């Protein structure tokens, strides 16, 4: 029987899934790797570790499940997180670790670019917000602060390109990953000169951009042998995880949006048109040629609730962390919507959309003498979701959506999903796939293999298994609190800045 593998290189792990030709999961395996923080603002990963982990997991999955069951691997489709930068020398050897999306060392470079007139055109041309996360800013940082490494660099590539280079010997980048670099013209599908000039590089120092459906690359002979794969196995380069999660949620087409909440989060819509926001609050990334995923990312998703659980969860009975989280969710469910008047701003990690303020900080507001621990639990959860709603609300000024589709480990918890339905006042759906990114990569791969004639048809096969309807009364309550939430978030910007200055002195 034929099968398709998807390889997703995300921030914490590589996940490899095997799908049958009907898009059903046969088996999967993951292998994690760490993020290093040599300085507080830095987030780095070891490219060799990511490559070896990928190879290891791939090999084990093949040997344990695929080969013994006589599956034939028709194709492998790749996905990865966005925005990583890895400088490599002429022989393809990494010059240090990869700098990943969470790395904020380029704050000053981003501020500088935002003051220059060309930043408006760079933003609208490349679709990527001017932010330290973007490779444009990271490469500029290297130029300004690590001139030696910058000069030695033969190419600036992403972790996905590195893994593909190791497996095939080729430097190629898909249009989707390229569209998240801040260096790529998402309308003309080529590197954008204005960005290159700012970063001080030429196109030779980047990989060749190719279609997400590209399958011209070939697995090196040695890997065919060790992995037991036929040299005819197609390698489909694929797209970025954020875009594929949207495809995997089945929302290609009008009137739909996805909410993803894992440790961070995002609200996204998919369309054939670029979404133009004059205030530069939303990204436009390419899922595929002519398919744009637009939306806003938040730093403060599940990670904030995990922070809360670590500080205030009850560890006395030697419970595991998951059990402690569940206990807290139970506690939260015993408090009414609105947490009896306690509000929480969740900006513990600064915030991207819609504030785009790295200095934003967290706060509990409205505390009175009757508030108990359970109100804090509820308010924390609601604060995280108000932030998601604030992205969705502004997104709605550009695109109408009536149905919301959920993915990510946190968003799909019943309590969270219900609160989202109530806040948005919309029907919220949970899909039948446990991993939207893998599903999206599979749908893309199967489209390339001709199983589906286009991505819309592929997306239509995703079915929702659970639907949450909004409670009108709760919706009204949330809207009252949200007004204050939104106002506070803007009002406090001066105070955020001042407290951050003090925090930086520590």
């Amino acid at each position, binding site marked *: 029987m034929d099968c398709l593998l998807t390889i997703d290189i995300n921030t914490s*792990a590589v996940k490899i899934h095997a799908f049958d030709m009907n898009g059903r999961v046969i088996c999967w395996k993951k292998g*994690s790797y*760490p993020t290093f923080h040599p300085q507080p603002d830095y987030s780095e990963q070891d490219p060799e570790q990511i490559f070896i982990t990928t190879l*290891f997991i791939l090999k084990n999955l093949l040997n344990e499940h695929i080969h013994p069951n006589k599956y034939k691997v028709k194709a492998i489709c790749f996905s990865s997180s966005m925005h990583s930068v890895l400088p490599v020398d002429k022989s393809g050897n990494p010059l240090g670790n990869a700098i990943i999306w969470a790395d904020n060392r380029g704050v000053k470079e981003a501020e500088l670019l935002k003051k220059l007139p060309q930043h408006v055109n760079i933003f609208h041309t490349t679709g990527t917000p001017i932010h330290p996360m973007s490779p444009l800013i990271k490469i500029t940082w290297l130029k300004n602060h690590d001139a030696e490494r910058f000069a030695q660099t033969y190419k600036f590539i992403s972790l996905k390109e590195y893994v593909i280079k190791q497996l095939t010997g080729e430097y190629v980048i898909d249009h989707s990953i390229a569209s998240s670099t801040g260096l790529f013209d998402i309308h003309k599908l080529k590197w954008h000169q204005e960005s290159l000039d700012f970063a001080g590089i030429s196109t030779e120092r980047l990989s060749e951009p190719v279609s997400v459906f590209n399958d011209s690359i070939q697995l090196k002979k040695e890997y065919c042998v060790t992995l037991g794969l036929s040299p005819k196995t197609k390698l489909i380069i694929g797209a970025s995880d954020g875009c594929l999660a949207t495809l995997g949620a089945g929302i290609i087409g009008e009137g739909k949006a996805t909410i993803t909440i894992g440790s961070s989060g995002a609200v996204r819509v998919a369309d054939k048109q670029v979404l133009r926001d004059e205030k530069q609050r939303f990204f436009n990334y390419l899922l595929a040629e002519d398919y744009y995923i637009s939306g806003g990312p938040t730093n403060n998703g599940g990670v904030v609730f995990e922070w809360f*659980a670590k500080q205030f969860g009850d560890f006395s009975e*030697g419970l595991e962390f998951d059990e402690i989280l569940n206990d807290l969710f139970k506690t939260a469910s015993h408090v009414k919507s609105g947490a009896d008047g306690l509000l929480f701003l969740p900006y513990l990690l600064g915030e991207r959309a819609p504030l785009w303020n790295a200095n934003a900080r967290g706060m509990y507001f409205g505390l009175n003498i009757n508030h108990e621990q359970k109100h804090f639990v509820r308010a924390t959860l609601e604060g995280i979701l108000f932030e998601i709603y604030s992205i969705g609300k502004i997104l709605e000024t550009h695109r109408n959506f009536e149905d919301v589709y959920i993915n990510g480990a946190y968003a799909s918890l019943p309590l969270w999903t219900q609160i989202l339905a109530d806040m948005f006042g919309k029907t919220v759906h949970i899909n039948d796939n446990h991993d939207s990114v893998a599903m999206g990569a599979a749908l893309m791969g199967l489209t390339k293999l001709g199983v589906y004639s286009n991505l819309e048809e592929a997306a239509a096969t995703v079915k929702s298994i659970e639907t949450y309807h909004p409670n009108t009364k709760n919706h009204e309550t949330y809207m009252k609190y949200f007004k204050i939430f939104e106002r506070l978030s803007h009002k406090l910007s001066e105070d955020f800045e001042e407290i951050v200055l003090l925090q930086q002195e520590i």
Partner: protein
Amino acid sequence: MNNPFILYQEKSKELETFPYIIEFANHKIQNIQLHSHQIKLSEGIKICFITEGKFDWNIDGQPYLLYPNDTSMTCPWQTMGGNKGVFDIGSLMWITIKPQVFEQNGELVLGDWSGISETDQRVIGKILSLNKKPILSRLKSCQQIFQNLETELFAQEMGYRTRINHLIDELLITAVRHLSKQDNLRRDFPQTFLKLEQTLRENLSDPWTVEEMAGLVGLGTTAFTEKVKAFSGFSPLNYLINIRISEAIKLLNREDLSLTDIALETGFYSSQHFSSTFKKLTGYTPREFRKSKD
């Protein structure tokens, strides 16, 4: 209870039958005396338990404040003493044990008296040698062990030798277990795991065992293996191999290193062991991998 005492090996007859105990004391300080606690190297593994007062100490160049129920644990290569060279007012108990072998790389042989298995002794040695925090806070269970030691040593009832040997084993195990647990709260396994990974990378040439890795993060081997597997997708040993190969690939890019150098540096027994593991995973021998880059 006995009056405060300090017993020294070769001076106090109580210690004659226990040549591995260098010092054993239950000490009360009522007034501060100059030079009463100068900073110097311990002669062995020194464990101090504070019963009363507040002590301002310096261990390996770092200042520490110790309060009742705190325990300090220092190795022969670490200096310790009062921050001002004196004992502060208060009471404390301590014991210094001289292992047969204790190297800074973690090699530890306690001696024939100890009932701790060879494997566990290696784990203890490793944990102590990598430990950077010599203070065990609020470890009250040490007090009971010290008191039992004192009773046995002075009463010398039938079987006291065996009892004392056991009590010292127990003291070591209690302290080291606490040491590996206090920094590795179960609420944050990812953080614990990241710290373990950093330790492994810094000591990659060591032949790590699962027992040692588990001991280092304060877990039993079964629980450790399960947690690592659930978190990372790998068994602990496979995770380690991944790190070894990742580092080896980096070193392979350096022309000046021989394959044997790389193998040993990254913790393989030999260049053959390195080559076969490398080939099994990547399909290349290290030599071919090097060439493929040119």
